[in-house]
């Protein structure tokens, strides 16, 4: 396990980690510990660059938040995975540690509805004002699928076919 993984684990024992590749490590972080892990990363991981923060909607109010950091000098990629539930999940904002995360957090807030507490300016980043509460990246937000059958891809969730078998 890379040095950063060992550093984080012995500070906060209940984080589990699995290696993704030779120099990539993934840490499963509980929601309330996120700020500490990021401060550890900021101190331990040399030249850390916050690549991105983004959410994944796993239906029925299950969300996952993934932070990605890349440090070019130690050539390690750290991926933090935080799972959240609830209609509008909450998490502390960590953009004062890494200013680069501020706009990623704003985008996750407007796309998924995951609220970042005490974020400096929680305005909409990309969406027009009409879509303020619509959270378009959630699976519930259905787009115009009038010509989906012609497009040749099965609907996103493979519906059980009445006549069975995969005709297409």
């Amino acid at each position: 396990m890379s040095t950063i993984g060992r550093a984080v684990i012995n500070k906060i024992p209940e984080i589990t980690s699995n290696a993704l590749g030779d120099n990539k490590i993934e840490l499963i972080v509980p929601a309330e510990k996120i700020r500490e892990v990021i401060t550890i990363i900021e101190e331990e991981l040399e030249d850390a660059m916050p690549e991105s923060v983004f959410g994944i909607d796993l239906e029925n109010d299950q969300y996952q938040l993934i932070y990605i950091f890349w440090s070019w000098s130690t050539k390690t990629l750290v991926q933090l995975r935080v799972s959240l539930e609830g209609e509008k999940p909450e998490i502390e904002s960590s953009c004062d540690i890494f200013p680069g995360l501020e706009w990623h957090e704003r985008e996750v807030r407007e796309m998924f509805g995951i609220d970042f507490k005490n974020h400096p300016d929680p305005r909409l980043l990309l969406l027009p004002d009409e879509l303020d509460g619509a959270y378009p990246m959630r699976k519930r937000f259905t787009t115009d699928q009038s010509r989906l059958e012609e497009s040749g891809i099965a609907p996103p969730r493979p519906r059980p076919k009445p006549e069975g078998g995969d005709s297409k």
Partner: protein
Amino acid sequence: MGFFSVLGDIYQIMKHTFRQVFKRPFTYFYPFEDRIYPERTRGRHIHVREVCTACAQCVRACPVVAIRIDKEDKKFEKDAALYFDYTRCIFCGLCVDACRFEALFHTPVVDLSEGDREDLIFGPDKIETLDRDPLEWRGRRFR
């Protein structure tokens, strides 16, 4: 401060721009002269109906669903009429790759412009031939 080195730099720059004045410009007179389009250019399509077997693979392969198939309108025994909607088409060439019977080709004709949106939907009659109503401008025939 290198006052004279600055004068030297300025002289260099002026020399380049002065020499450029007498060179042949790069652009050409577009409607009168045009460049030769390579044969792989992904321009508007040609639908060869003799070989077409109405398998609709091209309709499924199109990312923007720009092709509409009409299986009843048959000219040969197993083919179908295709309607290419050039307001949606992004000229990506996936339909030509998907067609196993080589019934669909690209042509290097890229200047598609019509009066209104309905004309941009090329029906079976327009999609098979390349000749369009001639466009006259300044005594030269362009289309």
